[in-house]
């Protein structure tokens, strides 16, 4: 019997798991996919919003601001890439500048520092802003983060502090008993005193298994283009457009790894696995982004992708214990600014659960975690010391991102280590560069085969049936 079973190992589930591990608790995380950070958490804008945009008084506003505040300390404790690059919401000559004033009012109410800048100052800051941009709202606390590393860091640290992770395990049914829940999965049956629903786009399904207060989550698709690092300096801040009814418009932002990201579109779709891109969607990004940033080199796209935002029809995050299902805690409807809010959601949900179960603090909790060493940050002497001890760090596998075998070995052998090509890619960036794994995937497959160890025929792109090779030559 677990004290807590968290369903979903995205950024929200992982944040909750880590916060809960600060208590003496028997907890587990149940994840249908083969790795953490495999749903909404992996495909989004990778930004930490300043918090001026959410409607004052909502959970979104409160948790965004708190989450933003927590990021500096968290990024140091958990060693993930995070950068306060600041953000701009730009207003063009055809738009109503009063909309910026409304944002200033909201920012004040939410307690977020912002200012209005005129074109001259803006151009000095961002020379590539579109010619039509006349003024902008500047938020210095806007930031960018690596969502993979944030999620992995939270999950690894939770696991290191005793939380169990069941990957490749899909919840099919939840039944409420008198004072516990029976969770049926495609593997085992798990019993837990409390359940945390962090199931992303499926959170409605889970909630509706135990509660009469039905939720409805709509998958809102956002398509993105990621550009080569050559284009990474095109802007230095995150450039938003004035919000429209469908979302925050298209943004242009550097990523923490030095690429340029353009997106998202916003389309409500029926399929909760509908992460396909469309010609129209991708085609629109160049046109729309040009309204705020000029000359975005869309020819330098290295990959495009789509993610789903879990939009709850009532608009705000749904967080807390279900009224008619004691011990069932929702963290549902976590769409933007979900990534920004995740650490704060973790705090909030963990304290609710802890209170409900009367948990004591865990005196052995160790909140620090080391990320995968990036040898590029070392001096030549340090690097040579490292290679002498561990020669694999001298063997470059991914030539585009200059990722060594040493980093890949670390990714495989660490807590909740990589078991697939995408797992290695998200942890190390091997295969994330301009050739998109053309050269390194056969080498990475060999390393997985040898180190996990596993059969070459079981190596996948990202779990389940995403197999890479079918058999030996002439024998398929």
């Amino acid at each position, binding site marked *: 019997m677990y004290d807590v079973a968290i369903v979903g190992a995205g950024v929200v589930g992982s944040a909750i798991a880590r916060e809960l591990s600060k208590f003496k608790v028997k907890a587990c995380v149940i994840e249908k996919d083969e790795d953490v950070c495999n749903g909404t958490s992996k495909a989004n804008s990778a930004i930490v919003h300043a918090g001026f945009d959410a409607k004052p008084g909502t959970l979104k506003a409160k948790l965004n601001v708190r989450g933003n505040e927590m990021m500096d300390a968290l990024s140091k404790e958990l060693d993930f890439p995070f950068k306060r690059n600041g953000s701009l919401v730009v207003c063009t000559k055809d738009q109503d500048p009063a909309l910026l004033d409304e944002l200033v009012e909201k920012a004040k109410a939410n307690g977020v520092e912002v200012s209005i800048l005129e074109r001259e100052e803006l151009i000095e800051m961002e020379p590539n802003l579109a010619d039509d941009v006349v003024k902008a709202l500047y938020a210095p606390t806007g930031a960018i983060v690596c969502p993979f590393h944030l999620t992995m860091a939270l999950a690894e640290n939770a696991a290191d502090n005793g939380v169990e992770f069941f990957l490749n395990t899909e919840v099919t049914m939840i039944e409420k008993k008198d004072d516990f829940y029976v969770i049926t999965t495609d593997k085992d049956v798990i019993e837990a005193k409390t359940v945390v629903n962090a199931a992303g786009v499926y959170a409605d399904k889970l909630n509706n298994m135990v509660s009469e207060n039905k939720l409805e989550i709509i998958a809102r698709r956002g398509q993105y*283009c*990621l550009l080569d690092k050559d284009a990474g300096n095109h802007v230095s801040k995150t450039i938003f457009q004035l919000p429209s009814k469908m979302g925050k418009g298209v943004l242009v932002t550097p990523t923490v790894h030095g690429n340029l990201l353009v997106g998202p579109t916003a389309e409500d779709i029926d399929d909760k*696995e509908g*992460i*396909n*891109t*469309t*010609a129209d*969607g*991708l085609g629109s990004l160049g046109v729309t982004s040009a309204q705020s940033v000029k000359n975005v080199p869309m020819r330098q*796209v*290295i*990959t*495009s*992708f789509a993610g789903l935002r879990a939009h709850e029809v009532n608009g705000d995050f749904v967080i807390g214990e279900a009224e008619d299902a004691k011990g069932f805690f929702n963290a549902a409807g976590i769409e933007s600014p979900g990534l920004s809010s995740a650490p704060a959601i973790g705090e909030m949900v963990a304290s609710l659960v802890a209170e409900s179960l009367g948990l004591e603090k865990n005196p052995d909790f160790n909140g620090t975690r080391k990320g995968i060493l990036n040898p590029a940050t070392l001096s*030549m002497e340090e*690097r*040579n010391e490292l*290679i*002498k001890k561990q*020669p*694999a*760090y*001298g*063997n*470059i596998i991914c*030539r*585009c991102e*200059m990722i060594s*075998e040493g980093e890949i070995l670390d990714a495989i052998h660490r807590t909740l280590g990589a078991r697939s090509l995408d797992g290695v890619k998200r942890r190390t960036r091997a295969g994330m560069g*301009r*050739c*998109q*794994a*053309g*050269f390194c*995937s*056969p080498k990475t497959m*060999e390393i997985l085969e040898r180190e996990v160890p596993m059969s*070459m025929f079981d190596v*996948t*792109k*990202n*779990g*389940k*049936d*995403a*197999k*890479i*090779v*079918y*058999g*030996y*030559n*002439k*024998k*398929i």
Partner: protein
Amino acid sequence: MKYDLVIVGGGPAGLAAAIAAKDNGIDSILIIERDRELGGILNQCIHNGFGLHTFKEELTGPEYASRFIAQVEERGIEYKLNTMVMDIANDKTVTAMNATDGMFTIEAKAVILAMGCRERSRGALNIPGYRPAGIFSAGTAQRLVNIEGYMPGRRVVILGSGDIGLIMARRMTLEGAKVLAVAELMPYSGGLKRNIVQCLDDFDIPLYLSHTVVDIQGKERVEGITIAEVGPDRKPIPGSEIHYDCDTLLLSCGLLPENELSKTAGVELSPITSGPVVNDSLETNIEGVFACGNVLHVHDLVDFVSQEATNAGKNAAKYIKEGKQDASKEVKILPVDGVRYTVPTTVRPEVMDDTLTVRFRVGQVFKNCAIATYFGDELISKRKRPVMAPGEMEQVILKKSQLAEYPDIENITIKIEEA
């Protein structure tokens, strides 16, 4: 560490350059190769058809490579395998790394860039649809099948009719897969005609010209591919879709010279070839840094890579021995009217070799046309060509003696004219 000449890349270009430099009097040479063996991409090109120009016989890729590797070994030229060049500074300090030596720097008098090229990826093509397993560049599939011995698919659609795509259509078929179709965006194939005959026609594999992939289905592994005809604007025509149930999509949609290192050295690149801008010595804008092979511009035949690299090796040797060649004049070579680019882009009549091969590609298919060369406004030569296609390289040979007769010209123009 100090070497007279560092050659970055041990594929066909690097090998031929090293041999030529050695034969022209340079003893201190280091070839740096990132893979576990010399020979580069030839090692996975196990089909035949290489070397007709160089050896007057038809060899497979590994055989062609082995002849050059043997010459490198015979001459005792040094090389390091499994070694990655991390940086080239504009003073020709090369920083490299491997598992045994760690990270180290080499001061070189001259550097030859011979890093080759990479394939355009699905991402760069911006093909819409899902992102399942089962989408490979043709070269990745070629490595898996020919070197690792693993089959990456059973039912295959190929986008792009570049030579690697055509060759892989045959390879996959011979190894037991079913290749359903090859789709090509352009109204003509990007590969050699002989490959269409012996890789597609021999096995009744249909080639759809003016077609592209408009959708990829399958959430885990590819489950289907939809192709559609494109109009003259290369946009898909609604209603022309053809669907295939398949598990694999191979991409053979063009090659891109790999010049990330060249950029670290400050080498100027051509926006058309994506390779360095070079003069008649194949020297870049950085003195003593030369380029050859597919890193300079993508070739159709390895024989031409070897020829070009031999020149780069010779010129680097000359530079190491004699220093910078002073020339008072540099004549520009202008590609116009169907000629997309030329390599080199400039020629120095005083210091050039007796003959200079100018290589280029055309921008569309030309039938019964001619390649015309002008010195200034004067037509110097006109050579008839029954067919020219963008998939095949063309060349013009400039003679030093002939150029000497035109001391005042500013430009040489190469263009396609009616025959």
